[in-house]
């Protein structure tokens, strides 16, 4: 048993997401279910999230009607499945500035948030380029920037410049520059606390959408395949993937893509009454299972 308990918690889904966005290449190979999820990390007196989800109050119906995002549930409902409230959250690591990962900044009133400096800098820079470059900024929400500004004013926004070890004991932040976004970040939990850990988990944000990005589609001849949506380069995505795999000793299941529908079949899990899933990656000493 390690220092931290870790769960991946669905909060919404797109039922028909094109495979070609999740995995570069297969253009006419249909669709997959794409869960929206965040990661709950609990232990050593801290309750942490990787990403925030988005604020359904503002955009839920719009997203549901136009893009098929369905079954959104609030952090109170989703975290409640693990006996946690939004007020309990102490730290949130934002992997990148897309609305489904950062749009819930004001849903966790006691948390301190961490984001890469490069993500903020380049996001703001891209917004000065004019509407013909709007692909580069994704779904930039003025409300998100305003929320981030309020947090910065209140001293609750920590801007990380590159890699940072032990931001919380055993938790490291890594910059994966010019990949899915300009300043994407992945989070490593060294659950035995050792520097050269034999019990590491990595939360990859959208550097990978599926395990297939780490293994390819040919199980007899595994290879790295980038996602199909990047403002940076495919090379950078591949090198980031290789780095993440190396850090977990090659066990691809420990590089966790929150949009992977098969997480619930890979780890112990249960469906909730709301039709979402609680996926239990590991439990710290004394922590009861939430899927048993």
């Amino acid at each position, binding site marked *: 048993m390690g220092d931290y308990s870790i769960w991946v918690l669905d909060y919404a889904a797109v039922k028909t997401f094109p495979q070609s966005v999740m995995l570069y290449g297969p253009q006419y190979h249909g669709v997959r279910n794409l869960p929206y999820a965040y990661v709950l990390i609990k232990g050593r007196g801290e309750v942490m999230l990787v990403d925030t989800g988005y604020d359904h109050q503002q955009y839920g119906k719009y997203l549901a009607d136009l893009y098929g995002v369905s079954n959104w549930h609030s952090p109170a409902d989703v975290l409640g499945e693990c006996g946690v409230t939004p007020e309990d959250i102490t730290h949130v690591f934002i992997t990148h500035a897309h609305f*489904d990962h950062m749009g819930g900044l004001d849903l966790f009133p006691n948390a301190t948030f961490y984001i890469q400096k490069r993500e903020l800098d380049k996001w703001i820079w891209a917004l000065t380029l004019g509407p013909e470059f*709007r692909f580069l900024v994704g779904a*930039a929400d*003025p409300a998100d920037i305003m929320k981030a500004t309020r947090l910065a004013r209140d001293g609750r926004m920590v801007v990380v410049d590159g890699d940072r070890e032990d931001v919380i004991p055993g938790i490291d932040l890594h910059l994966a520059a010019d990949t899915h976004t300009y300043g994407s970040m992945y989070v490593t939990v060294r659950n035995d606390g050792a520097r050269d850990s034999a019990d590491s988990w990595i939360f990859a944000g959208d550097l990978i959408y599926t395990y297939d990005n780490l293994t390819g589609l040919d199980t007899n001849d595994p290879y790295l395949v980038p996602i199909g949506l990047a403002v940076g380069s495919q090379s950078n995505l591949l090198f980031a993937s290789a780095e993440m795999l190396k850090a977990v000793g090659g066990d691809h299941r420990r590089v966790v893509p929150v949009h992977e529908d098969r997480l619930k079949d890979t780890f112990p899990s249960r469906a909730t009454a709301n039709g979402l899933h609680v996926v239990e990656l590991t439990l710290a000493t004394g922590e009861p299972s939430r899927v048993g």
Partner: protein
Amino acid sequence: MSLPDPLLRYSVDAKPVHDLLRRALIQLAGFQLKRLVADRPGLCSYEPVEAARSALSEAAECLRSLGSPSGAVHHRSHLQAAAAALQRAVAAALSRHDRDGSDLFRHLEDAERQMRSVSRALPGFGPVDFGQACCAAHMRLPDASALQCSG
């Protein structure tokens, strides 16, 4: 929801104004955010402020020629109020007397409120363009037949 013709015309003409104001708000908020988190705030680039000023100048021209048919008066008034708040925000960003950015932030919050009212007053003026979002990747070709090659 379908709109009568004059209101539809107004919506088409008002959309670029809305987009310019939205951009200016993001740019100014981004500038303020960078200033707040910078080790040396005095060295922050004013490029976003200049870009916002340029967008606001363009928006002001469009606003002057924008009609005001029945049913759009309320919407137009919020667009104008947002533009005015953003102009004040630019002035605050460039002012030597607002070193902590409190005036800038106050004007940005005012502009944000006005933009929310804009988005509620008529359909099609949401604050976020989700057209480039990850979840929208499967919705970018609404009429695939229009792309068929005739040769």
